[in-house]
């Protein structure tokens, strides 16, 4: 019961926030009628643009969640290593995944099953910031050049971070230097 209450509370909070912001906006527009036109025009335009991309992104996410189970991800990533492992981690992270916190339990399980730290970190980071629907939405609002350059830099940063983190964690956990 308590958990249910908590859950419904966390579902209601964003709506409350929306109500508060909306009320503030209405008061502002009434107080400064000169700004109303620009505010309404900007909000209207963004509402249309958002409506054009959000449902499609959600559908892609839903399809991926049903068709590729967590078990499949664990199996693919648990066994792969080297360049293949990095590529797998990037590819899986780039799928239309849900929010990052949904990836934490998956990552924990992968680590428990002995997957490489670098691959897990790369999966997490790619999950967070590389995703096919997300890139399309970024292109829509920020342009193709911004999206492409940031994508390339992000992938480089993610791989670099994965490799660096593995060294950092491995040095602590094993007294012997690893033969690799």
């Amino acid at each position, binding site marked *: 019961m308590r958990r249910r209450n908590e859950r419904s509370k966390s579902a209601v909070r964003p709506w409350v926030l*929306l109500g508060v912001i909306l009320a503030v906006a209405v008061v502002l527009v009434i107080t400064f009628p000169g700004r109303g036109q620009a*505010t309404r025009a900007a909000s209207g335009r963004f509402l249309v643009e958002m409506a054009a991309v959000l449902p499609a992104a959600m559908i892609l996410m839903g399809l991926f969640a049903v068709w590729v189970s967590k078990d499949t991800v664990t199996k693919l990533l648990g066994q792969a290593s080297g360049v293949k492992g990095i590529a797998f981690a990037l590819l899986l992270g780039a799928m239309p995944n849900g929010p990052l916190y949904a990836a934490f339990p998956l990552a924990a399980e992968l680590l428990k099953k002995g997957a490489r730290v670098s691959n897990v970190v790369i999966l997490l980071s790619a999950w967070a910031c590389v995703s096919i629907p997300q890139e399309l939405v970024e292109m829509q609002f920020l342009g193709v050049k911004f999206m492409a350059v940031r994508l390339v830099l992000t992938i480089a940063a993610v791989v670099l971070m994965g490799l660096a983190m593995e060294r950092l964690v491995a040095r602590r956990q094993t007294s012997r230097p690893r033969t690799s």
Partner: protein
Amino acid sequence: MGLPAILINVLALGCLAAAFFKDRTRCLHALAIAARSFLKILPMALTVVVLVGLLLGFVPESLISRTIGRGSGLVGILVAAAVGAVLYIPSIVAFPLAGSLVKSGASVAAVAAFITTLTMVGLVTLPLEVELLGKRLALSRNAMSLVLAVAIALIMGVIL
């Protein structure tokens, strides 16, 4: 509707049609998940719509360009990165906000820093991450992401 919006809809419809012919029950299950996540993201998306309106209607461009504009340099990038690390909005909803910031005078570098920390660094979800992945891994991942986000922003500022 722009080309990216058309692309993402064609992609979604194509996958949906393929899924429907392959396995109807799983396809419906996927649609149910999609509907649930849509409802979950909807209030945040609408909040951003209102915020973008207020931003473009009320906040003077001079203020935006002074804090995170071209002239603000590293300080502007750090401010944007910090805001992105603290805020908790789904990135897909944050892009319109980022786009309107660029239109009203924010620098490309600062906006890149904002988006990158928004997606990679999560202060709100950090306790959960520590619990599931351990303190060492979680803290160093977030710290390293923050540094890399600033680096990405600086490079983007030079290139674009």
